[in-house]
Each structure stands twice: as C-alpha cells, then as structure tokens.
C-alpha cells in the first residue's frame, strides 16, 4: 500500500510536467544575451540635479526594497578597476561623481557646484558642493578629487580606465572645495574623466597605487563612497544589497534598500520576474513578447526606448573580396534590413545607416543610404567584374565569391541574421557559410593581430559621447578595435579635428561629415538599433528612461502604496 501511494505521487509529478509543458508556458531555451554588447563607457553615475517631471498621482513616499535582476555577477566595487556591467551598476549606487549626463546625454553638474573652463579649454576648475559626506561620515573635499583623478595618471596604475584620463597633465587642489585640472591637449570627452566616481582618500590614500586593484578590504568587503546608497552585504553568487544613505547630498533615496539579485540563467530570471522574486529587469529582446503578456495581465509594467547601441555586419577589408567599395554597397543593397527588423527582431528596433544613435546630438538623417534592391545589387556586382560561373556562384579572375560569416553563440538574433544573410546573398550567387562561436573564442579570432575572419555580425554599445575614432580611426587598426581595417585619410583628419574642440556644434558638424563618409564607404553594413525594455512593478514611480543607464536617478524612484 505504502509503495503504491509513493508510485502515485511520482506519477502525478511526472504527468504534471507534461501537462505544464503543453499549456504553453514560457519555457523557451534561448540562451542569454548578456554578453552581446560591449561597453563603450562606464555608467557609474547616478545622482543628478534636475527636478522630477513624472506624472505621478501622489507624493513620493519612503520605503520598500526593490529587487533588481541581473544575469551577471559583479567582480568588485572600485570603478577604476572593474570592467563589467554588474559591478558598474552597483558602483553607481555606492559612488557619485562631480558631473553626470542627462537623458539626452548633455553633461550636467552633479556633486560639482560649478565647472569653469579657461579660454584655451585646457584648464578646468571644479568647485565641489559643500557638506557632501562619504558613507563613513568624512567630508568629501578637494583632496579626494585630486586623489581619485590622479590614480589613473600614475605609472603604477594597472586598471583598465586610463584611456579617459590620458589628456590630463596634472590635478591640483586650489582650496578645500576647489580642484584645478590642467590638460595637455583639448579633450571634449574630458567630462567623463571629471565625472568619475570619487573615491575616499582617507581610506585608500595609504594603499600603494600598484596594490589598489587587489585591495579587497575596500573593493569587495567595505566600499565607501558618497553615493545615494550604502554598501550593506554581498552574498557571493546570490545578491548585493545596498541601503539608503540618509545623508545623501541630493536627499535621502525614497527606497529603503536595493537588492541586486544575480540569476545567471536568463530564462530563470524571467520566471523570477513573473513570480515577483525580481522586480526590475532589463528584458532581453528575445523575451519581450512574454514580458508584454505579463504587462497585459497587470503583473508589471514595461518602459521602452531606443538602446544606445547598434548591430552591424562587418567586412574584413584585408580580404580582396571586400576591397571594392561598390561591392560593399551592393551587399548592403542586397540585404533586406527592414525584413530583419520586422521578422528576426519582431519589429523591435530601427534600421541603422551610420555608427551613431538617433538619440545623440551628433546624429544626422542626411547620409547616403542603400535601400533593399536586389537588381541594383546584381548590376553593381556585375559592373565590379563579378559574373556568375558554371555553378551559379559569382566569379572574378577565377576567384569565387564565397566567405565565412562569424558571430557569437548565445545571441539568437545574430544567429538568425547570419541565416538571413546567407539566404539573401545566395540570391546574388554569393556563398556564405555562417559560423557560430563561443564569445571569448570569437573575440580572439576578431581581435588584432589575428583578424581571422571574412565577415562578422557584432554590435557596439555607444558612449554618450559620439566620437567615432575609437572604432574607425586608422590608428586603431594595428592594435585597436578597427578590426575591419578601414582607413580613410579625410575621415581621420575630421576625427582628429572633432576631438580638438569643446564646441559642441562644431563637433556635431564634423562627426556628421565623418558619418557621411562612413555611410558612403560601407566598411560595415549597418543593421539596426535595438530597443531596450525595462520591466518594473506597476507602482514604481519616478522612473525616467535613460538609454545608457539602467538605474538612472534611482534615488528618485519610489513605490506608490495606493497603487
């Protein structure tokens, strides 16, 4: 009898498995998208000065714990040394900088009272607001700013962030709340360095710079900043909790605490969101349809907007196949990018033509475009000398037009696009072999000096600053990120010039000119700008969508109890 009842239980369990599977619940097996975009900029800052403009019903109330979901684990909480998104998200809660940027990426004062620039743009004087305190009660003053900005200038610094600081000649304290930064050349991107999260000199000052990266006492156990939330607890592999800083200079955050919960599997994270175990999560494109259903059920709400990134099909210009500009243009003509956005992405994005986001002040509509037109593509290829051979494959001087298209595994959209490219190029008589590779192995093939690829599908996360030179300048070919090996003297000159002025209008003009050249030259076939979707509780108020910062102004968020 006993055995029979046990059997019954097991049977019921097994049956319920299959019934559940038939009910169409969300059990998709798409791997996560977490490693698809690479970081163009640290997103450390959170605090901001502008007033709220939300259409909330009631007055903000204090209280509540918000559980933020993440598939990535943080590594450490020191913004000058960490290089991953999870760490910088938490650093954004704990630390604060002198400057920040708003939703349209304009630089704003944050902990700085003022920011004065000399006529030659080389001397920057920053005044710190009075009475700002670190979490341990010590006042944040000029010494801390000088200390922080000087770390990356040291030869002993071995963190990844020196790039932002390379034009800084020296940093000096003028008085307790004033710092003067002298540059060795004009740098329109200096606001990133000047806005870097400020570290406490009274704690880290005694540690040798060479040891700062490994100083776990601060970096992992007890990080102290001046941000809106104080570090409370890090349970390895589970969550990081921060609690409201009562003395935050911009007012105590409304939420009592934030729990940054780590759920490595993207599907499991979605189920946690459905169960209410996670409250806030940037839903990947592959899961947005499911999330929209939950929104319709009233379980959560979703705020969407254009993400600050784009995806592209890049050609290795060292390969003779892609040497000719008109061939690359023809390839773009042959690819139905509208279809990719409509079918592969479910309409969740916009077709891209330039390496700049439509959200940016440097974006310009007026660039050469290559609409979907197979006939034109065929004609252009024929003109370039490519004619169908015996087996229908295009040939020129005995060489066949066939190549391998690499992309990273784990990104469903890119894998699907590779197939679309294969099919559509086949119509022209071009043979494409898609190859899906593990992320790190893929990068090793793409990175210099390997450049072991014909064509790739990849995406760039854009910085809030529109400078394209990190990816398209000739000097980035040998060792940098210009893996396709694109070189254009006129564009180089314009990029150099655009980085030598602080005048935003002048920069915008130059960057637009650069983008026109890039669009004409087609080193990449630009594919699309994806959307970003943030799922949150229906009663979360004070949220403002920021394309770059998932937790923008989080100290202004609050939970409406009446809702």
């Amino acid at each position, binding site marked *: 009898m006993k*055995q029979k009842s*046990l*059997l019954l239980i*097991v*049977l019921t369990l*097994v049956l*319920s*498995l299959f019934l*559940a*599977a038939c009910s169409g*619940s*969300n*059990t998709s*097996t798409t791997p996560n998208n977490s*490693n698809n975009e*690479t*970081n*163009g*900029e640290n997103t450390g800052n959170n605090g901001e000065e502008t007033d709220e403009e939300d259409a909330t019903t009631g007055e903000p109330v204090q209280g509540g*714990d918000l*559980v933020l979901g993440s598939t990535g*684990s943080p*590594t450490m909480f020191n913004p000058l040394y960490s*290089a991953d998104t999870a760490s910088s998200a938490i650093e954004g809660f704990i630390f604060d900088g002198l400057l920040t940027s708003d939703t349209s990426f304009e630089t704003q004062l944050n902990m700085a009272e003022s920011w004065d620039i000399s006529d030659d743009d080389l001397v920057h004087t920053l005044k710190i607001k009075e009475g700002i305190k670190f979490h341990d009660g010590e006042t944040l003053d000029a010494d801390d700013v000088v200390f922080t900005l000087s770390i990356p200038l040291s030869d002993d610094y*071995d963190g*990844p*962030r020196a*790039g932002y600081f390379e034009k800084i000649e020296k940093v000096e304290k003028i008085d307790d709340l004033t710092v003067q930064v002298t540059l060795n050349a004009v740098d329109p991107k200096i606001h990133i360095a000047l806005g870097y999260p400020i570290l406490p000199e009274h704690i880290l000052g005694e540690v040798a710079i060479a040891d700062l*990266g*490994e100083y*776990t006492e601060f*970096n*992992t156990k007890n990080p102290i900043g001046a941000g809106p939330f104080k570090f409370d607890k890090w349970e*390895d*592999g*589970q*969550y990081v*909790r921060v609690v409201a800083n009562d003395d935050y200079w911009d007012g105590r955050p409304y939420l009592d605490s934030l*729990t940054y*919960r780590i*759920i*490595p*599997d993207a*599907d*499991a994270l979605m*189920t*946690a969101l459905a*169960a209410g*175990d996670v409250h806030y999560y940037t839903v990947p494109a592959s899961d947005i349809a499911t999330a929209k259903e939950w929104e319709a059920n009233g379980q959560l709400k979703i705020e969407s907007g254009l993400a600050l990134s784009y995806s592209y099909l890049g050609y290795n210009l060292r390969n003779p196949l892609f040497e000719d500009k008109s061939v690359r243009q023809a390839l773009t003509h042959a690819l139905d990018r509208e279809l990719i956005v409509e079918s592969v992405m479910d309409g969740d994005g916009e077709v891209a033509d330039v390496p700049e986001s439509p959200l940016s002040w440097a974006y310009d509509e007026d660039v050469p475009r290559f609409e979907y037109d197979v006939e034109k593509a065929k004609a252009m290829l024929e003109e370039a000398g490519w004619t169908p051979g015996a087996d229908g494959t295009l040939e020129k001087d005995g060489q066949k037009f066939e190549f391998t298209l690499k992309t990273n595994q784990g990104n469903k959209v890119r894998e699907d696009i590779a197939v679309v490219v294969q099919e559509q190029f086949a119509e022209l008589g071009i043979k494409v072999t898609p190859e899906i590779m593990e*992320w*790190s*192995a893929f*990068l*090793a*093939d793409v*990175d210099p000096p390997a450049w072991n690829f014909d064509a790739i599908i990849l995406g760039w996360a854009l910085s809030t600053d529109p400078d394209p030179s*990190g990816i398209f300048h000739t000097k*980035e070919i040998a060792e*940098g*990120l210009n893996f396709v090996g694109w070189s254009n003297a006129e564009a180089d000159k314009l990029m150099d010039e655009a980085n030598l002025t602080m005048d935003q209008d002048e920069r915008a003009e130059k960057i637009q000119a650069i983008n026109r050249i890039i669009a004409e030259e087609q080193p990449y076939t630009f594919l699309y700008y994806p959307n970003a979707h943030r799922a949150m509780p229906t009663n979360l108020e004070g949220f403002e969508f920021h394309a770059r910062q998932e937790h923008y102004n989080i100290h202004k968020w609050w939970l409406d109890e009446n809702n």
Partner: protein
Amino acid sequence: MISYIIRRCLMAIPLLFGITVLSFAIIQMAPGGPTSLMMDPNISKEAMKKFEERYGLNDPVHVQYYKWVSNMAKGDFGESLIRRGVPVSEMIMNRLPNTLLLMIVSTILAVIVAIPFGVISARKQYSLTDYTVTVTSFLGLATPNFWIGLVLIMVFAVQLQWFPTGGVSTLNADFSILDRIHHLVLPAFVLATADMAGLTRYTRSSMLEVLKQDYMRTARAKGLKERKVTYKHGLRNGLIPVITIFGLMLPGFIGGSVIVERIFAWPGIGLLFFESAFQRDYPVIMALTVISAVFVVIGNLVADILYAIFDPRIEY
C-alpha cells in the same frame, strides 16, 4: 585491506599530476584570455599588457605551470584574475557548502526513491507496476535537466507559488532551516531525477539477476516468505553492482550540477566553474579541475572499498 587502500591512494598521485598537466595545456590552448573580454575603445592595449605582466600571463606555459604547481603544492590556489585579489580558495569555500548540500540531499532522494522502485520492478517483472516504473525512469533519463527545472519553476514557483524560483534562502531574511529546505526542494528534486532513473534501472536489472540465482531458490525452498527472500538475501547481493555505480556517480555531481545550479541561481561550485570558464579565470578553473579530479579518484576508491565490504568474494 589497509595496504590496498594505501596502494590505491599512492597510485592516485601520478594520475592527479597527469590531470593537472593536461588541464593546464587545454586551458592554455583555448582561444581568448581574461583580457580578450575587455573590448572597449577606452581600454588601451598598454593597460591589458600591464595586467598580463602583473599576473604572468605572458610567461611561457611551462613557467606558468611550474609557478602554479609549486604554489598549489603549498596549498595555495592563487588569486582570481577577474575578481582581483580574492583568493581562489575563499571563492571555492564560499560555494562548496551549497554544492555539497545539494549533492547530498539529491543523492539521498535518488536512493530513497530508486532502490525500492527498482526492487519492486524486478519482483513484479512484466507487471503493470514494472512497466510504469520502466517508462517513468526512461522518461526521467531522456528529459534534460534544464527542461524539468524550468517546468517545475513555472508550475510550482510561478503558478502555484509553493516554492521560490531560485536562490538558497529568502532575501534579507534571517537564517532558518525550514527556509533553506524550502529553497532546496526543487533543485534537489531536479538534480535527483536523472540519477533516480539510472539507479532504478541498475537496481532492477541487478535484482532480476539475483532473483534467478540458485541460492534464492534454496531460500524459498526452505520455506522463507517471498518478502524475506527478496529483501534479506536478494537485496544485499543485488546492491553490490549498484554501489559501484553509485561511487562512480560521485564526481559527476559537480559537472552535473552546473545546469541545475544555473537555473535555480544556486551559488555552488558548478556555477562558479561555469562563470570562470567563460571569463577565462585560469586560477579558478585549475583549482576546480584539481578538486573534481580528486573527487573522481575518491569516488573510485570509495566504490572499490564499498565493494570489498559488501562482496565477501573479493579478497586483497
């Protein structure tokens, strides 16, 4: 017997050495490295070179191996490259209890379910019960862990809300045994399913073999009740091969738990290994490889010793 165990332990040393050399070589051959993931226009090549120099990543492989082996001989697994400055041993010790807990509970669960069902199945060969158990265990073997896991989460965590979706304990709550058990049920069950199915099959076929033996017939002829025949005489002999299989299953738990740990956000060794492999955190990967190699050796050893205890025919 003691000398046998000592002999076996000594034999394990060259085996472990071979495993470390091989793993080190494979990891080095894998494309990419800890710095290849730093793809950002603002991270200069110099920064990466400084990082590589500091951690000796540019040294020839044999030099790196020598350094690593001599440190490990002193019991030092080194520090993580990704979570800079954090000792690998600390990272592993943080995670090990979680994995052990999951392993032990799921194993007990598997044994409790599998052995009785295997025996029943064998006793009532070709009965409805037997067919049901057989079909169920084949389904269990054939269904991937992650799928069972996700379905269970959807049913019992999202819809019925009986269990949490993942994690080892309730967020921000004080420690409580009940809470821990509550979190343990689903992952342990999922991890147990595959083993359960396998063990049931092994038990069944082993028991079938035993039930046909002459001594069983003798026991029955003596007038013993069928129940006693099966459980007293049959089971003891029938379990011998099962025990071996069980010992060999032991090391599989670390690898086998990767998927379950991932789906249930269970911060154990499997998950750590998974993360480290993707980030190319060499010291962590090596430490975990050595640990699982040790598990393999111990698992084999345990299987042999248990065999020796349970099977009087074996002499040393």
